[in-house]
């Protein structure tokens, strides 16, 4: 109960205003607010390490600055601000109730105070370091005695634990573990509400189906993670927020609202674990290519008709601007995660998984890794079969719904798996024991994403097969601007319908 108190009061309340500004009436607000609070706490921990002071002071500064920024934006945006229209409130409430009901079931495991090995050696220890203030944090992270605990790991999870210590002291160490488990649930809630949103404007049957599918994915997340979802490990957290970033940023129709939520989720993943940072980077690149496909008007113009020098300069400027915007879409949301990586490098912390090379041959390591990873992807053949069936028979339904091309999701899946595979192959640890100890956790993201993909196709299929499925209400959300994208990946700006976006919408520029 104490951890829940900290989650609500310590993380949820400071994150509520930004969450409302971003998600408005969406059910995601309930889960987004603590995630935003945790991100702000992580940035506070970065300030604590980089500048000085205590976590509470730095967190207060970040939270106040963010909330002032949101209020200022709210006032300044004025007429450009999107309306609050969106999902009917009763459906949002129903979504929240169903998601919370689903998440409460695995959370009953908190009755047994489990202490995972990494939960103590990495996250609890780092939480105590952060709680101790700048000097303690700096000297401990750089102390070789702690180097087995991966001191370069990002600070979101320990910052949340340290915040709990700030509320209740060090009398109950397990509160830090409880905070991680509750954040796991919030992250899955973000994923579940994203899937529920896929059917949010369909018939009542489709909506209900989408909500149930979202709740099922929440439960599937805890099922895939197993004991690691409830004993203080952070793998489920980064996997769930990264999967949520994909659903909000690469599956749901393009809108400022969905983009902002995807960015926050990606930032949370990048602040949770090193694997989360690399995966978030892949997701952000794909989101940038979907929302701001870099163009080459300069090249196209040269090919078509060589114009005057002035024309060439104009087109060159357009090209540079296009690429700069695309780069900004990647770098800006990744800044908190990159800042931690830079800080860690600056104070001399090294990633022990990439610091030396193994004596085993690459071929052997690759072979063993493929078998190890494949053993945890039993859902992949089914998901691939559903993808093929969906693309053959439900492609137009997906297009009409304005959902992103499934290729985005699968590219993110493949990219993340490729990085994890490469880490195992070039890493220094003995491959058999390394896989035995970690592959069930490093594949949580890949599994979770495939279950999300199944749930999305399930909602589309239910909507397609249900009677009078096309007699739906006009669009309610002013933030939605994209339709008909699903046919081709939006890599070169084709089918650009951004003019449909409301004035001031980030995607309309």
């Amino acid at each position, binding site marked *: 109960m104490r951890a829940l108190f900290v989650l609500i009061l310590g993380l949820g309340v400071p994150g509520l205003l930004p969450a409302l500004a971003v998600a408005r009436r969406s059910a995601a607000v309930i889960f987004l607010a603590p995630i935003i609070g945790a991100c702000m706490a992580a940035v506070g921990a970065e300030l604590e390490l980089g500048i000085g002071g205590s976590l509470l002071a730095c967190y207060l500064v970040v939270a106040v600055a963010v909330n002032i920024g949101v209020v200022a934006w709210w006032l300044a945006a004025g007429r450009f601000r999107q309306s609050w229209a*969106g999902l009917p409130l009763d459906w949002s409430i129903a979504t929240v109730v169903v998601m919370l009901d689903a998440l409460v079931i695995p959370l009953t495991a908190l009755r047994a105070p489990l202490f995972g090995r990494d939960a103590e050696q990495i996250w609890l220890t780092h939480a105590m370091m952060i709680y101790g203030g700048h000097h303690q944090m700096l000297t401990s992270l750089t102390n070789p*005695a702690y180097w*087995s605990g991966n001191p370069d790991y990002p600070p979101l999870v320990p910052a949340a634990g340290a915040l709990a210590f700030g509320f209740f002291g060090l009398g109950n160490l397990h509160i830090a573990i409880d905070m991680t488990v509750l954040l796991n649930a919030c992250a899955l809630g973000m994923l579940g509400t994203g899937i529920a949103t896929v059917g*949010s404007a369909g018939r009542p049957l489709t909506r209900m189906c989408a909500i149930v599918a979202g709740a099922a994915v929440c*439960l599937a997340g805890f099922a895939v993670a197993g004991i690691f979802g409830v004993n203080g490990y952070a793998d489920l957290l980064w996997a769930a927020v990264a999967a949520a970033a994909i659903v909000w940023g690469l599956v749901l129709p393009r809108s400022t609202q969905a983009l902002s939520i995807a960015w926050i989720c990606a930032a949370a993943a990048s602040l949770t674990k090193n694997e989360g940072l690399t995966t978030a980077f892949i997701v952000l690149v794909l989101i940038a290519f979907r929302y701001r496909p870099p163009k080459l008007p300069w090249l196209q113009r040269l090919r078509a008709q060589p114009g005057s020098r002035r024309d060439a300069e104009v087109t060159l400027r357009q090209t540079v601007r296009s690429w700069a915007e695309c780069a900004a879409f990647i770098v800006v949301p990744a800044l908190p995660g990159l800042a931690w990586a830079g800080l860690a490098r600056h104070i001399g912390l090294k990633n022990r998984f990439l610091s030396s090379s193994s004596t085993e041959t690459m071929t052997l390591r690759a072979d063993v890794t493929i078998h190890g990873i494949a053993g945890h992807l039993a859902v992949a053949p089914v998901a691939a079969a559903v993808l093929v069936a969906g693309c053959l028979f439900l492609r137009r339904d997906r297009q009409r*719904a304005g959902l992103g091309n499934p290729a985005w999701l699968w590219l993110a899946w493949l990219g993340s798996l490729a990085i994890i595979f490469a880490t195992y192959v070039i890493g220094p640890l003995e491959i058999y024991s390394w896989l035995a100890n970690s592959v069930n956790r490093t594949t949580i993201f890949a599994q979770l994403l495939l279950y999300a993909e199944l749930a999305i196709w399930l909602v589309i299929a239910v909507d397609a*097969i249900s009677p009078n499925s096309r007699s739906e209400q006009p669009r309610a959300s002013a933030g939605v601007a994209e339709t008909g994208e699903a046919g081709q990946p939006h890599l070169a700006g084709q089918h650009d319908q951004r003019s449909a976006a409301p004035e001031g919408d980030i995607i309309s520029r």
Partner: protein
Amino acid sequence: VDVMHARVPGRAAQDGTSVEAGKPGLAKRIACVVVIAAAAVMLGLTVNHGLLAAAADQTPAAIKAAKITDRVEECTYRTIRQELPKGAIVYVADYWHGDNVRLTDLETLWTVPEVNPAKAQWTLSVGRGQLCTRRAIKVQHR
């Protein structure tokens, strides 16, 4: 976010195709049933597996075992603070392995772990005994 906004009868979809009237064809209906069945079965099986595993982890015996482990952690944490002065430089024998790792973790904020025994004032190690139920902590002043 409204995602089904193009579904208005008789209105052309925004991708330029006309919205078909009537029911979907047989092949499409079969495909829908297959997709729904495959997705529902996979999700259902996984959820069921998760619920069964969660139930197994919450038997009275499992909860009791977890509480004992939790108490050992708390006890170790308190013992370190009772036996060692604040700020002491402590060497933990074989500090990267087994329960010794936990000593290093749980002394955080109280003492300063040192990897070089020659520079340490105290040595901590785990031994056999009844202290903290499962774990005995041996403290030696150098």
